[in-house]
């Protein structure tokens, strides 16, 4: 678990550096080695690792547009994910998806760039598991800004009435871009929403991977045993802007200064130390994580750019005869 936490953190920090290359001092979204927007999840690690520890490759995870920590915890191929983020041909989606749209069917991982819209497909994965008498479960992640969305609320309801093996995880980082949580909802404890659908709800009020692990153990166990869905809300913290380039002028200095004190990583290290893990072992794990991340980034940057003609592939698995590139308005 610690290994995944530090891998995710180092990954986010390195992506930030790579992303800002060529974008300083003046931020220009179309410059630098990483295309598009980049939404980082540093500070969200407990919600990812505490839950995904209980999952196997057969279990499905749908992540939102801030997906890297969950992908790492779920075991998504780090090299191919990184190549995708750099827009390379050997990336998970051949350079077509990018960082908000990572798909790794080998470990049943998918995500969406549209708020809360990963919830219904997770319900569908759970439905398939139930119909096939498999004990696989589905986990869907949303941010606390997404809890007002129909896609989220309708999914809670459908999963509940069909007793489907789904765990809904709300990552509560207090901010939906510039919108503070208290103006999104009058219900501070988001897990209470579960009551409205007659399903169990649990809030992990502190930013602690072990506490998340324990809550998820109960929820995933309940799902696997055929006892239906659970809602877990986890308090996390957004250490960076909503997207890279977001100056966060809406956030107070006091709040931003508090973030280091709330960082889950030093707390986890202290706990591991108390439980007998030596400093040397912690350092070894950190170094291994760093190496893995550096290897992935180095590999990704060496990968070829896609050929422009590939833009026309993959619209359909079985393309109608008329959809050649020329028919589609392409050059060839």
């Amino acid at each position, binding site marked *: 678990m610690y290994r995944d936490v530090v891998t995710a953190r180092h990954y986010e920090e390195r992506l930030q550096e790579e992303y800002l290359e060529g974008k300083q001092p*003046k*931020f*220009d*979204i*179309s410059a630098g080695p990483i*295309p*598009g*927007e980049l939404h980082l999840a540093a500070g969200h690690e407990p919600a990812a690792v505490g839950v995904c520890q209980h999952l196997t490759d057969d279990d499905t995870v749908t992540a939102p547009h801030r997906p890297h920590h969950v992908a790492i915890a779920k075991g998504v191929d780090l090299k191919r994910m990184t190549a*995708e983020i750099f*827009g*390379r*041909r050997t*990336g998970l*989606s051949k*350079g*077509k*998806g*990018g960082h*908000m*749209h990572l798909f790794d069917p080998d470990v049943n991982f998918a995500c*969406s*760039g*549209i*708020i*809360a*819209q990963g919830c219904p497909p997770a319900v569908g994965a759970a439905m398939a598991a139930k119909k096939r008498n498999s004990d696989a479960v589905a986990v869907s992640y949303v941010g606390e*800004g*997404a809890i*007002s*969305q*129909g*896609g989220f609320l309708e999914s809670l309801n459908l999963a509940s009435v069909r007793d489907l093996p789904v765990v809904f995880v709300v990552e509560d980082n207090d901010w*939906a*871009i*510039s*919108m503070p949580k208290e*103006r*999104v*909802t009058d219900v501070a404890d988001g897990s209470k929403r579960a009551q409205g659908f007659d399903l169990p709800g649990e809030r992990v009020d502190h930013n602690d991977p072990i506490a998340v692990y324990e809550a998820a153990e109960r929820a995933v166990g309940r799902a696997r045993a055929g006892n239906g869905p659970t809602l877990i809300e986890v308090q996390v913290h957004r250490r960076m802007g909503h997207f890279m*380039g977001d100056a966060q*002028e*809406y956030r107070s200095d006091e709040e931003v200064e508090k973030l280091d004190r709330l960082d889950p990583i030093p707390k986890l290290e202290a706990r591991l130390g108390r439980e007998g893990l030596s400093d040397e072992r912690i350092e070894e794990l950190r170094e291994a994580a760093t190496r893995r991340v550096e290897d992935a980034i180095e590999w990704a940057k060496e990968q070829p*750019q*896609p*050929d*422009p*003609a*590939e*833009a*026309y592939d993959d*619209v359909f698995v079985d393309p109608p005869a008329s*959809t050649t*590139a020329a028919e*589609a*308005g*392409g*050059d060839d």
Partner: protein
Amino acid sequence: MAKATEPEGTQRELTMSRAMVEAIAAEMRDDEDVFVMGEDVADYGGIFDSTEGLLDEFGRERVMDVPISETSFVGAGVGAAQAGMRPIVELMFADFFGVCMDQIYNQMAKNTYMSGGSVNVPMVLMTAVGGGYNDAAQHSQTLYGTFAHLPGMKVVVPSTARDAKGLMHTAIRDDDPVVYMFHKRLMGIGWMPAPDGPKTGVPDDDYTVPFGEADVKREGSDVTVVTLGLHVHRAMAAAESLADDGVDAEVVDLRTLVPLDAETVLESVRKTGRLVVVDEDYRSYGVTGEIVARVAETDLGALEAVERVALPDVPIPYARPLENEVLPDAGDVETAIRNAVE
């Protein structure tokens, strides 16, 4: 033409976003019933600066940040409009319309008709469109055709700051629902460089640009290029480039898709005989097909050549070489013009 309604006076150069905000602010001062709501419109000032500064002047009751729940807040705009207010609702990206499409095309667009005209929905739904910054298939669509296809909404697409202000005044005063689609790359935001074209002189005072009046942005005699939004500037660049080779292109900026000024297009085609339509939306069943059909069914004999430039029918890819391949640029427009005049 619209210019006749514009006042004399200082014409500072404004970015398109500043011009839009100026119109919104003026209408809010004039009419207590005008208010703004949407995601990140208050403290953030709109992700694309479309509401920058409004919170300071008008406060949270009239510039309302709302939870991420498009069905409820777009639908609430419909309800408030039916109750006689004049809401301006922003949906951050046109791509997100899918979440709340029922409120748009079954409520906002149809209630006037279904009520036999007994209620109306004077709201403005504004949203960002367009790609060109590698944000991939769920954040880069243009979707002009989708909204123009569904009856009951007026659809506005400004290409310059001057037009953006006048069209916004018209949109807010209009008694029907108006979808106001602005291209991100035209807004003049710091982190997304704009071409030079959209930043124009803008009169200080209020003025309206009427709907249904296309603007001939460049006169020419050899070929008519019909386009809108960002691609007005791409077409202007192509026309200037071709002028050196003796090809004289006329550039028609549609400015509104509903109502559509087919007459200006026809007049131009009757003069040039050749038609090139340029659009950043998907090619099939879209603006390009519609414009060609309007000309063909009205005056087939005027057409000597037709070319279409649009997004091939593929979702917008992420990697730069792939996105560059599918998004039309000035070079693509230039090629199409050459093909038309050959």
